[in-house]
């Protein structure tokens, strides 16, 4: 049975929206005949490894995710038509260099792409988010892109450019304004304030940070711009195709700093990547459409139900506190499934224990709440005075006289 490669769907005129996925598709397209593999457009929630690209090899019953792992698997368990002219590498130096540059791309170019397409609010809203909405089946765009943005932002966090994410800034300003209003400060209505008056106020965050951004891009591009990629292995060439073709994406992107820097100063690299793309996917701009794409729906019956299950998980992840636990539990469960499917013996599952514990907790809390409800409310009267029964005492002065008479009797 053919290998199945689960990847993010196409966007920006590229076969995938993710650099690793483009690299994996390119490698398969260059080394393996179309009969031996299928490309399935998917999302991380559909695969047990929670990460794309993911390769499912039915012959070894394994799930492998990540570009280098897929490469390693294809080289150690080659499909029948597999042919990579650079494997094994001609010299150890080429092997070592290829590995080093591939690692460099995945470690240092990914944060740049994250800044460019994910952290920057304008680019995210105008191009990346719509692209995800196009490639994900219907209820999933509600949950998955937001989580992906979180993950990608975390990968670019060490570069210290979170100010590109103006959503956070705007939210903070709104909160401050609301707090000022509540505290009773006089606020000037927006219609009466003047527009931006200084150059700094007119500039976008990307323009303000342009020098720093160019410097960050230069750090990475100086290294990969000088490499003779044609001499390296196929794996390294596919990697540079994947990462750099995303770095030079500019159609529909409002703030194109990364594409501009790359195209202006590293023409050799861009030319190489363009050539490599034509060579891999055919001459046309959308040559990758002729690759063996398979619809996700025909693979799994009841796709609609599965989509809603995936949506349910996505919603659960967003619940504060519970989401974290849920994510961990689900990942652990999927991992056990994969290992069992592969035939690896597993220790006893702790799910029952967890559910028993949860049940006991819920029962205890329910009982506590019920007991609480039966208690009198705070401020409720503990003593009650009822109106005395009307006896002769209720008849005014005469009654008092009469009752004292009765008492004496």
């Amino acid at each position: 049975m053919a290998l199945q490669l689960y990847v993010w769907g196409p966007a920006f005129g590229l076969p995938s929206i993710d650099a690793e996925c483009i690299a994996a598709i390119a490698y398969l397209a260059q080394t393996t005949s179309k009969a031996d593999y299928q490309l399935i457009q998917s999302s991380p929630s559909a695969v047990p490894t929670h990460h794309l690209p993911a390769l499912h090899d039915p012959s070894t019953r394994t799930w492998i995710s990540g570009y280098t792992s897929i490469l390693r698997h294809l080289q150690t368990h080659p499909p029948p038509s597999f042919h990579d002219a650079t494997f094994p590498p001609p010299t150890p130096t080429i092997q070592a260099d290829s590995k080093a540059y591939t690692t460099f791309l995945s470690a240092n170019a990914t944060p740049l792409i994250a800044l460019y397409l994910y952290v920057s609010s304008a680019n995210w809203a105008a191009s990346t988010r719509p692209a995800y909405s196009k490639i994900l089946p219907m209820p999933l765009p509600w949950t998955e892109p937001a989580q992906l943005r979180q993950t990608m932002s975390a990968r670019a966090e060490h570069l210290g450019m979170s100010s590109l994410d103006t959503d956070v800034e705007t939210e903070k300003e709104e909160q401050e304004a609301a707090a000022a209003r509540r505290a009773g400060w006089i606020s000037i209505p927006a219609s009466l304030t003047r527009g931006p008056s200084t150059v700094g106020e007119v500039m976008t965050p990307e323009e303000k940070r342009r020098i720093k951004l160019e410097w960050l891009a230069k750090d990475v591009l100086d290294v990969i711009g000088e490499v003779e990629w044609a001499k390296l292995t196929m794996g390294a060439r596919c990697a540079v195709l994947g990462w750099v073709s995303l770095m030079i994406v500019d159609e529909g992107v409002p703030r194109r700093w990364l594409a501009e820097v790359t195209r202006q100063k590293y023409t050799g690299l861009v030319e190489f990547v363009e050539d490599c793309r034509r060579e891999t996917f055919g001459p046309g701009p959308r040559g990758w459409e002729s690759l063996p794409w398979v619809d996700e729906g025909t693979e799994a019956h009841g796709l609609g139900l599965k989509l809603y299950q995936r949506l349910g998980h996505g919603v659960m992840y967003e619940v504060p506190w519970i989401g974290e636990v849920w994510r961990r539990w689900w990942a652990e469960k999927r991992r056990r499934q994969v290992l069992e499917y592969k035939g690896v013996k597993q220790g006893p599952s702790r799910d029952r224990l967890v559910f028993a514990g949860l049940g006991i907790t819920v029962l205890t809390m329910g009982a506590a709440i019920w007991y609480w409800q039966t208690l009198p409310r705070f401020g409720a009267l503990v003593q009650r005075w009822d109106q005395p029964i009307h006896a002769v005492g209720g008849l005014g002065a005469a009654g008092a006289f009469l009752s004292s008479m009765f008492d004496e009797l």
Partner: protein
Amino acid sequence: MQLPAAFWTHPPELLHFDRWGRRCQHRIFRIPYTSSTATVTMASATATPPKPSARPNQPAPSLWPIPAPLQKLFNQFPLVTLDPTPLPVRSQTLTSASDTLPTLYIFSSDEDALEGKPSINPTCLKWQTLLRLSHVPFLTSPSSNHASPTGSLPFLLPPRTVSPNPIPSTSIPLYISRHTNSPSPLPTSPRSEAYLSLLTPLRLAFLQTLYLTPAFTPLLKKFYIDPSTRSSLLGTILQTQLSAAASSAVLQGLGLHSQTGTGGIDSENLYADAAEALDSLAILLQESQTGWFFGEEKPGEFDAGLYGYVGVIMAHMDTPEGRLGGLVRRAGGGGGELVGWWERIRREAWGGDGLSEGGQK
């Protein structure tokens, strides 16, 4: 005009009269417990000059005098005067020697730091090795991230007589070049940048081994938890936090959501990636004629950076459960380049006097 008799006996600046024309007596009080010589002059109105005391230097007789035998007994005390308690060992070195030597704050134990033994943390070991390789004398002191101005160890504190400003680890190469009269470090070549990124898979595998492998929990406790707390409850909490932080770092490095938990980590792939990285580094080392990376005459920052990981791995994780030790030994097709290189650096930096054996006992 009749001047009072005291005018002639007192210097005029000390002579005061109150508003009824009486002469004021001046008393000078010295404020106790202050080193300054400030004196307070207080004027008290007295009509008569003070009588000269009969016994000027004798204390005034107290109301109930102590009986002589009792006084004799009390005079025996204290029987023994103890020596002042010495300062803690580490502060003794710091106070005596840190006037002339810089101090590197690292993750270590009190005893190891006193002897300048290798740190147990890869980043700390990197800078410690670099300083030792460049023969800059320095002291080491055990510390924690909370003590660091940058939030992470190591940092270098120059001699107290020179400057009070700590030097973050990134500025240590500059410090070395200033203090050894060597040329300032050259900007790194693109190729070395690329090879430097190979430390990323090595780091992920290292985190997986030390923090997320149950077999290494005792080592983790010894390294990071025991120096911080003696309470078992706090230790457990600290260990959980450390493991959670490590797992989210590994997940982030793999491109997964950082809260996926250990279920998302495929440790086989981590070790396979680390093995490929070590292989590539061993191949790079084979190319070099000098025995150091990139054909340098003497080991530099790149060597120190890799030694940070390899040193800790070979000293503490070269056990059957620790797969990284085996990976280092087998790197580059079993030629033992990395092991040979590791021993060379150890000799170069620690003089081969067995200081780095400390971790193996």
